[in-house]
């Protein structure tokens, strides 16, 4: 049993006279990237919005360039998940050039991608989620961070976290040519063959990652699920529960797949709503525009946009770990499947059948996915055929194509059109956090409404509102990483007239 000193779940609330609360992710873009919560005369939440920054001119930047440049350009769009952009882009080029990669190339791409998942999910769980679950949502902000987690669980565990996250990076570097901005994807294949020595090295790292996945699952059970206060938070239907549609990629047996397959959408009861190929996405998804934000909000076309509401008549869907676990029937690897079964059984014992609509269950799903990514990485790295030189397929004159992968944060769509010379004439991308944007907004509003009553607020309470947004692992500020633009949050409580009552910062 892994134990940690008593986490701080609640803190003392004080009555605010303010009517507007802002939670600002601090960026250099003044007036962008924040959560605003409006209180009514009684001090209850009237409304809440999440506004996010968006870069300008990326589409224009890509049009007129050779499509072969796009896997390298689009992966610069985001400093957080360049690997996902690189692969979605490479798959879009497979479609543009009607080029089928040979089996070795597919395996190498997927192996690379399991490295990405391993690194990304470890970073989110330990650096971003664990502070809330190990130290407690109401622990002081200056302790509620990854350093505080290391203090609580001990330096040796911290060292294991760093080591395995690095292994994920190393696998990406070996297969992808570079750890952060990969360069290996080509239409119909990959550019780089790997050696037997490299394969064996990756196999050893993958073995260790599988063990670390087991450790993380155990940690989640011991520290989070065994704590009735945390279980209560996860099951809190007033604050963290949305009955939405879900979207994610599956293989032919409806097992979760991060790299390839059909996109499956299920309804609020778990029934299949639609199953589609990447090339059909425009028939399934439309995008809604709100006047107060730059980011568009995708919704299911056939259902329609009904605003920030849930249920079968609202086209809002969720992607990412919770979306994927709700659209699949499990995993192709044994340890992840066993934990999936435990997840379903636990929820069933709690009276939940069908999809799990509990927003904080994102974290559990992410831990299960970490286990699966490590196991799949080991399967692929143990396959001695991946050193084959047969890594390029034939390709045809360029036309138009769509590539989709599951980014760690959710379904990622790249769509390009090319003229006969390979020059890009059209580009459209729907990124993971955009898919979740309407749902994140709805979650933030729900948590704020449930938690802020009669104007009573506290730093811990506002952090619990943030938890509704953080569990999606949102990645809003694709691209900018200036020194002062570090990820930080500011929560401001304001009166109806906009004047500030109180400010909380975590920086």
């Amino acid at each position, binding site marked *: 049993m892994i134990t940690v000193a008593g986490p701080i779940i609640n803190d003392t609330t004080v009555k605010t006279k303010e009517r507007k609360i802002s939670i600002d992710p601090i960026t250099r873009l003044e007036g962008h990237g924040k959560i605003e919560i409006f209180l009514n005369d009684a001090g209850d939440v009237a409304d809440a919005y999440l506004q996010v920054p968006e870069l*300008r001119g990326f589409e224009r930047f890509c049009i007129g360039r050779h499509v072969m440049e796009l896997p390298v350009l689009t992966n610069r769009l985001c400093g*957080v998940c360049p690997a996902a952009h690189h692969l979605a882009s490479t798959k879009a080029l497979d479609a543009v050039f009607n080029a089928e990669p040979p089996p070795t190339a597919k395996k190498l791409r997927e192996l690379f991608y399991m490295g990405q998942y391993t690194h990304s999910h470890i970073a989110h769980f330990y650096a971003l989620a664990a502070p809330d679950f190990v130290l407690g949502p109401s622990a002081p902000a200056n302790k509620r961070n990854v350093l505080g987690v290391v203090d609580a669980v001990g330096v040796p565990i911290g060292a294991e976290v760093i080591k395995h996250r690095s292994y994920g990076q190393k696998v990406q570097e070996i297969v992808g040519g570079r750890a952060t901005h990969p360069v290996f994807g080509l239409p119909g294949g990959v550019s780089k063959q790997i050696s037997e020595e490299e394969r064996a090295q990756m196999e050893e790292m993958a073995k260790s990652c599988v063990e670390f996945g087991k450790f993380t699952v155990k940690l989640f059970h011991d520290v989070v699920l065994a704590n009735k206060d945390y279980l209560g938070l996860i099951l809190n239907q007033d604050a963290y529960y949305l009955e939405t549609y879900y979207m994610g990629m599956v293989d032919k047996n409806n097992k979760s797949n991060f790299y390839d397959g059909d996109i499956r959408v299920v309804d609020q009861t778990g029934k299949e709503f639609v199953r589609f190929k990447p090339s059909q996405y425009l028939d399934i998804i439309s995008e809604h525009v709100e006047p107060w934000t730059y980011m568009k909000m995708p919704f299911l076309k056939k259902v329609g946009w009904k605003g920030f509401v849930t249920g079968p008549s609202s086209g809002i869907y969720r992607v990412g770990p919770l979306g994927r676990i709700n659209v699949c029937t499990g995993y192709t690897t044994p340890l992840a499947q066993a934990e999936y079964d435990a997840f379903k059984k636990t929820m069933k014992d709690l009276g939940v059948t069908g999809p799990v609509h509990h927003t904080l269950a994102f974290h559990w799903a992410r831990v299960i996915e970490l286990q699966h990514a490590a196991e799949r990485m080991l399967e692929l790295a143990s396959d001695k055929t991946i050193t084959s030189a047969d890594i390029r397929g034939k390709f045809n004159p360029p036309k138009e194509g769509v590539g989709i992968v599951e980014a760690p944060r959710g379904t990622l769509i790249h769509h390009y059109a090319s003229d006969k010379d390979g020059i890009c004439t059209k580009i459209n991308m729907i990124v993971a956090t955009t898919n979740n944007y309407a749902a994140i907004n709805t979650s933030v509003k729900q948590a704020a409404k449930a938690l802020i009553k009669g104007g009573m607020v506290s730093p811990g309470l506002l952090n619990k509102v943030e938890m509704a947004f953080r569990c999606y692992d949102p990645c809003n500020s694709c691209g900018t990483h200036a020194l002062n633009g570090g990820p930080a949050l500011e929560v401001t409580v304001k009166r109806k007239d906009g004047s500030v009552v109180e400010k909380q910062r975590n920086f």
Partner: protein
Amino acid sequence: MRAIVLGVGNPILSDDGVGIHVARELGAKGLPGVTVEELPAGGLELLDLVLDHDIAVIVDAIQTTGGTPGHIHELEEKDFERAVHGSSPHGINIATALALGRRIVPERMPHTVKYIAIEAADLVNVGEKLTPQVQEALPRAVALVEAILGLSRS
């Protein structure tokens, strides 16, 4: 002495890429004993890279209140102490990553970390070029890194 220069930023986001531009110029010089890396963001990747070096120089864009584009700020780890303790929506910042390294693997951390932060004008528009004032600061930033590493010719 094992030295590493890290150019942090996004090379297709106007001045956000200034750290990358500096890194590329330094990389082209082939400085003896100096590793030069480009990095899209701070966080744990940065920690991986600085390990087992004696000195690390981090070059990045910055925007300060009332700052003049092209101005070069020389900063040190202690200048970011207030930034260390932040939990974040999608990543940990450079200062937190370094603090984490000092906690977990202190013996492998650089004894000195210097920041060269170049005041940016445009961090919003996609583009490969720097704005004129930041472009003009580029040679000064390169020279400053060389001076810090004790490699300047003058």
